[in-house]
């Protein structure tokens, strides 16, 4: 096929639940391609010899390679190629910000002068992961070395799988009662079905990984105990960025103000959406303001709708363009009825005599000069205060790293933000202790966490050879 012919192949639309219907249910929003659609979409790839898309992928998946297989309808073959470098394609196909990664560099998108017309790499990846079979994984012969993995998010899952494949005896420790990290407590069912995460955890168990939930490392046992008393040869710390940031607003501790972590954990992990069945209560606000502009803010606002809110405002201090959330989630949130209040921010939250939220004063902003990050920084417009009638406020302005492990691990070097410092093999300042994911990067992405878990596993295997 000539490039012209390929350009004539229509972009495939992802089937999804109707916006009005889905805004009130928990089922997955995007339904996934049909086999035919996956083949057609994959055949839009021009197989550029320079493979620009790969440079956009944090783990450098051989994208043209797997798309070629998918175009032939060989989804098993495609999945095998993906799995050479990515462990969690069913997850990443759903949650990666593709428009900022692979698809940003796609030649098709460039030719069509629209990144939305790039090959839908993520969606084809998702199809391959959901329907392909990459075959049995074979583990290397047992090395007799024992590795402890702390935290069961994407970084921990990946590091555990790779260590098990390398023949080490692996135990995964998780503080919560369910493994999966943000994938189970944060990202909602309607975006990432929990059965997909469970499949990955079951896969780990098949590789021989022991999973110990309800185990808070630093409290139940310290990292040093693992190495000195419990016979582990190496430890990987992938504890994520689980420390909710608040804004320091007056009224932030009123009843009805939640961190997005709390709001989403109640709804997802604790299943508060199963009303009458789940024991964890949920705050059913009618008029909800969500503060923030990332994926977390999108998830919280869409969750609010699903749990019965009549009005949901998403309040962000910059403009739509600077918003860090995945484009698809922004589209979905808007279609479902979330009202976007851009260039605005909360100034003060008001409470009634029972201490419950009864309103909020906001300020309008304009964009000023670009700041150190290159983004134009928002500047408050004096005298622009206005009142917003809300009964619930969800603060989704980001997460810092949880200090528990650094505070209980002597000699573990952290930077001024509290993130663990690692070398190019993801080893920390303590020999034999590795770290990766959000605890190293600060709140980042699933794919980066996965990449770090991989690199650390390779580092661990190298390190254990020297022992």
């Amino acid at each position, binding site marked *: 096929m000539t490039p012209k012919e390929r350009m004539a192949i229509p972009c495939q639309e992802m089937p999804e639940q109707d916006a009005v219907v889905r805004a009130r249910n928990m089922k997955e929003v995007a339904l996934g391609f049909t086999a035919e659609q996956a083949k057609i979409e994959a055949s839009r790839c021009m197989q550029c010899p320079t493979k620009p898309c790969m440079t956009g992928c944090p783990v450098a998946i051989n994208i043209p390679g797997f798309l070629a297989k998918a175009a032939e309808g060989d989804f098993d073959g495609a999945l095998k190629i993906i799995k050479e470098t990515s462990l969690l394609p069913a997850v990443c196909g759903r949650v990666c910000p593709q428009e900022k990664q692979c698809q940003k560099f796609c030649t098709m998108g460039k030719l069509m002068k629209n990144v939305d017309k790039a090959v839908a790499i993520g969606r084809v990846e998702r199809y391959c992961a959901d329907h392909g079979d990459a075959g049995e994984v074979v583990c290397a012969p047992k090395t007799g070395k024992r590795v402890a993995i702390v935290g069961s998010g994407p970084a921990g899952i990946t590091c555990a799988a790779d260590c098990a494949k390398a023949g080490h005896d692996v135990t995964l420790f998780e503080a919560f009662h369910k493994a999966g990290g943000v994938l189970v407590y944060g990202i909602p069912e309607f975006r990432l079905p929990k059965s997909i995460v469970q499949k990955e955890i079951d896969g780990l168990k098949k590789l021989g990984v022991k999973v110990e939930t309800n185990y808070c490392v630093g409290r139940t046992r310290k990292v040093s105990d693992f190495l000195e008393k419990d016979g582990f040869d190496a430890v990987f710390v992938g504890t994520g960025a689980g420390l909710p940031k608040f804004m320091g607003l007056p009224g932030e*501790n009123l009843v009805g103000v*939640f961190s997005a972590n709390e709001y989403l954990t109640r709804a997802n992990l604790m299943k508060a959406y199963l009303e009458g069945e789940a024991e*964890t209560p949920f*705050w059913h606000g009618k008029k909800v303001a969500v503060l923030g502009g990332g994926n977390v803010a999108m998830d919280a606002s869409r969750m609010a709708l699903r749990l019965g809110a009549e009005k949901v405002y998403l309040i962000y201090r910059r403009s739509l363009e600077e918003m860090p959330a995945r484009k698809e989630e922004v589209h979905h949130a808007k279609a479902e009825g979330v009202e976007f209040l851009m260039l605005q921010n909360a100034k003060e939250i008001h409470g009634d005599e029972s*201490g419950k939220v009864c309103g909020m004063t906001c300020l309008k902003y304009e964009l000023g000069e670009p700041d150190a990050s290159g983004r134009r920084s928002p500047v408050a417009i004096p005298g622009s205060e206005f009142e917003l009638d809300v009964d619930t406020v969800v603060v989704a302005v980001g997460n810092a790293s949880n*200090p*528990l492990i650094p505070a209980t691990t002597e000699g573990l070097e952290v930077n001024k933000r509290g993130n663990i410092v690692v070398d190019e093999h993801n080893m920390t300042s303590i020999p034999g202790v590795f770290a990766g994911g959000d605890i190293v990067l600060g709140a980042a992405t699933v794919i980066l966490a996965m990449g770090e878990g991989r690199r650390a596993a390779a580092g661990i295997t190298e390190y254990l050879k020297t022992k």
Partner: protein
Amino acid sequence: MNKIVAKEQLSENVFRMEVEAPLIAAERKAGQFVIVMIDEDKGERIPLTIADASKERGTITLIFQTVGASTLKMSHLEVGDSIAAILGPLGQPTHIMGRDGGKPGKVVCVGGGIGVAPMHPIAQALKAAGNDVTIIMGARNKGLFVMEKEMREIAGDKLILITDDGSSGRKGLVTEPLKELCEAGAVDEVIAIGPPIMMKFCALTTKPYGVKTTVSLNTIMIDGTGMCGGCRITVGDETKFVCVDGPEFDGHKVDWDQMLKRMAIFKPQEAAAKEHACNLYK
């Protein structure tokens, strides 16, 4: 899974359970707590203070009152059954005067209702560190006292019992003997554990005397590891997470009114859930 090895009913709504949890038993210090789940699928996560532990037996002791659906379900578990999940030990251990810094001195421990249970290991440690320990135990009526014998072993004749209705010990509120002790002088520290309203009034009572007053808070929690902020309160001008910064705080600095309101946030849902659970056992 944590197997129940002993169970005893201490009063109408209060139970003592000894459960297997060897790692927690080995690590825990007075003042720390655990998060318990009775059902890992749809259950809730509830914080309970560790009342006692035995390294030898690898067990911890929990004393709880059937205040909600989960504690009610827990009270129906028997020896040989298991508690689905126990996470811990969580929180900062109690600072014991004389052991963790400072000279031993005169300490007054105030335990209200079931608050006597978490007070027990603290009073024990205080005594062991050479402090002069007075214990005030308060309850609505005689039938609601727990662990009187154990507390008497620690405080001897410095155990003051007080009930709302006078059915045992003095008639009145714990703040009355507390005030008298402060008045008499030479109290170095007060530790108060019990219903929030009792702790609030203990702190108000000691404030004019400038006596350091430590309280142990039991706010709503989910994870217990500092990741949700649901347990946050205002102490002085700062926001603190009870699960990691506490559970003990300076009672004179806690914003009690805000905390009481935050603790009532799910009252209607909790009442409904408890009623539902009650019906299951009828």
